[in-house]
């Protein structure tokens, strides 16, 4: 379990850097709209998770179970691209500046990567 401790420490470190970049991109230019990126990336794994609980992907009798899983994946893909597209839209209209856009995109990707790898590392092994 020593590896687990190291993973936790490095993941929280990366998460802190991600939040630092996003907050810096807001506070340096006194324009707090890029904070929406954090909300987007926190929401992004949710549809996948909820729809995964709702449906049994190995159920062949009714194929509606698979459709729910696919809908969750579709929503997750939508939200992940939204996290990149939102700062780009804001920067294109000069609501935020280009450095703020770069910082919030990188920070958001770090936050999302942390959430995803946390889910990967600490997934409970399901025994049948």
């Amino acid at each position, binding site marked *: 379990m020593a590896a687990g401790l190291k993973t936790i420490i490095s993941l929280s470190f990366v998460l802190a850097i991600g939040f630092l970049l996003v907050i810096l991109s807001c506070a340096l230019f006194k324009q707090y709209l890029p904070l929406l990126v954090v909300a987007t990336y926190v929401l992004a794994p949710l549809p996948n998770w909820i729809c995964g609980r709702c449906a049994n992907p190995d159920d*062949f009798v009714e*194929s509606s179970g*698979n459709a729910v899983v*696919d809908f969750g994946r579709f929503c997750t*893909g*939508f939200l*992940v691209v939204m996290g990149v597209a939102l700062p*780009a839209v*804001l920067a294109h*209209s000069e609501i935020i500046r280009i450095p703020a856009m770069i910082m919030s995109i990188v920070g958001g990707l770090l936050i999302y990567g942390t959430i995803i790898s946390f889910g990967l590392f600490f997934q409970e092994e399901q025994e049948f």
Partner: protein
Amino acid sequence: MPEERLWKFRKPEWMNSSTARSAGVYAAGALSSLAFFIMLDAAVWSKSARNGSDIHIAFIDWLPLIFSFLGMLIINSIEKTRLSADSFSYSGSGVAWKARVVLFLGFASLAGGMAGGVTVLVLKYVVPQTVWPTLYMGVSNVLANGLVMLSSVVLWISQNMEDEYAYNLAL
């Protein structure tokens, strides 16, 4: 199954894996998100200080995208296996016929969205002879509708993979 194959080239093996299927669904979501945000970008840009002209994005510009998304919703909500239901003897009540009518409505809505995007580009931006930064609002409209179309194609293909996958597992 192999005797019923119509095309010379068969589908590559890796396309039948569940990983490729879920990657396709994620990509479809990403593409539709990109379409929505390209249109949103044009709308935000038109109200910002960088838009020097007096042409702005109105509800008219959004209408083709709404039709495209409606068509995408319709054609991907249809149960694909019902399309060939008439070939089975036990299925009466014309399910396949209904499915084809609804599917036709969906494709018409999708194509209508694309045509509407081109119409808005021509009537609102090309005919009044606007120059590039203003023309961008019309081009983004066509681009967004094309991306919605591409997204529904990707989603359609990855949903058709599912059947093969289920078939392989059932064996």
